[in-house]
């Protein structure tokens, strides 16, 4: 499994039947392919659809049916399209069960920074601040390190996306749960040793006696 696939398949296990889920652009988008369609999980895209489907067949794209990245999508049976106010009403009103987003940094308080690198990358927060501040569960799906540098750090050096503790961090090395006491190492990726994870993490990790290996859906 590639690092991306480890992350995507592990996050897929977190998504429960019948829930409403928002997958961020990029790595999180790929999670959808590991979801059993029979689970009745609905994907929301904040540009205004509940019940986003996969890519349309070549030649059948509709220029008025796209995801938040501007890519062509389809609508599943039972989908609903909504305007931006209701779309964010769903997000902000606690109707969105899970948002899965990429991360630049997560710190010991469970704070996430993922929208700006001052002086370098200023794309804007888009819907990320709403999603992180308001979704019921926030799952960060990211590589454990960037160019060898830990992304799980004592305190975020980049501007925060929200002052809220995220629910779970899933990387290619580990599953980490931010708690009131700090970051708890919950699972190891296949073939990742606890020592390796600790070495790749600059934040303090709380390490339970038992850190099982990740389990994936078939």
């Amino acid at each position, binding site marked *: 499994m590639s690092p991306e696939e480890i992350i995507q398949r592990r996050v897929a296990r977190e998504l429960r039947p019948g829930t409403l889920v928002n997958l961020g652009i990029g790595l999180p988008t790929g999670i959808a392919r590991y979801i059993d369609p029979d689970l009745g999980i609905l994907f929301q895209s904040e540009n205004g659809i509940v019940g986003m489907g996969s890519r349309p067949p070549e030649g059948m794209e509709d220029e*008025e049916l796209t995801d938040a990245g501007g890519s062509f999508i389809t609508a599943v049976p039972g989908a609903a399209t909504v305007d931006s106010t209701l779309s964010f009403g769903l997000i902000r009103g606690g109707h969105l069960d899970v948002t899965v987003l990429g991360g630049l940094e997560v710190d010991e308080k469970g704070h996430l920074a993922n929208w700006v690198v001052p002086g370098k990358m200023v794309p804007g927060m888009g819907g990320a601040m709403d999603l992180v501040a308001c979704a019921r569960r926030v799952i960060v799906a990211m590589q454990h390190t960037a160019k060898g540098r830990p992304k799980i750090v004592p305190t975020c050096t980049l501007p925060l996306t929200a002052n809220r503790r995220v629910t779970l961090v899933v990387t290619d090395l580990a599953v980490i749960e931010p708690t009131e006491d700090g970051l708890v190492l919950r699972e190891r990726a296949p073939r990742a040793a606890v020592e390796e994870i600790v070495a790749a993490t600059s934040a303090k990790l709380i390490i339970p006696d038992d850190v099982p290996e990740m389990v994936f859906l078939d």
Partner: protein
Amino acid sequence: MKQAISPQQAAEMVPDGAVLMIGGFMGVGSPHRIIDALVAAGRKNLTVIANDTGKPDFGIGRLIRANAIAKVVASHIGTNPETQKGMIEGRIDVDLVPQGTLAERIRAGGYGLGGVLTRTGLNTIAAKGQRVIEIDGEDWLLATPLKAEFALIHCDRADFVGNLTYELTATNFNPVMATAGATVIAESREIVPVGLISPDNVNTPGVLVDYLIRREAHRVA
């Protein structure tokens, strides 16, 4: 009965320096014909309130490339490096607002509210300069109303009295912007006689709309 004007006539109404809302999400559901006419008319110093600035030379990106925009209020400019370049060079003033907050601020402008309280952005740099209101020990950010001189929107169907419907994800910011522009100009994929849109299916009542953009040339008459 609304007047059907050409994109050129719409562009002529908009003076240099005007404050515009422009519908669309990365160009999807943007009023492309009006945008092209604004570019052709050589408009300058516009303030544009929109979700994003499209892509290079696409959607609102057409106005960016034409140097028509002096200020942007948006949630995202990441898909248009030309906007980022303009911001870094100091040619474009960019005010970044979380997307949900942007939608609510526009709605507050259109619905006559003095503002709404949100937790999005609280204790982040996006809260800079904004007022924090405490209610029962909980902090909220005060998001203030946005209005525009013109709302330039896209829709799927319009009838002769300006009732509008929207389609799929081309809906996005268009309906809410239709409430918040002093003058609302709607570019519709089709214009149909009164009665073809049932009262239940109207998303934007015609009373909110000032002008429709006339149809493009037809192949039949």
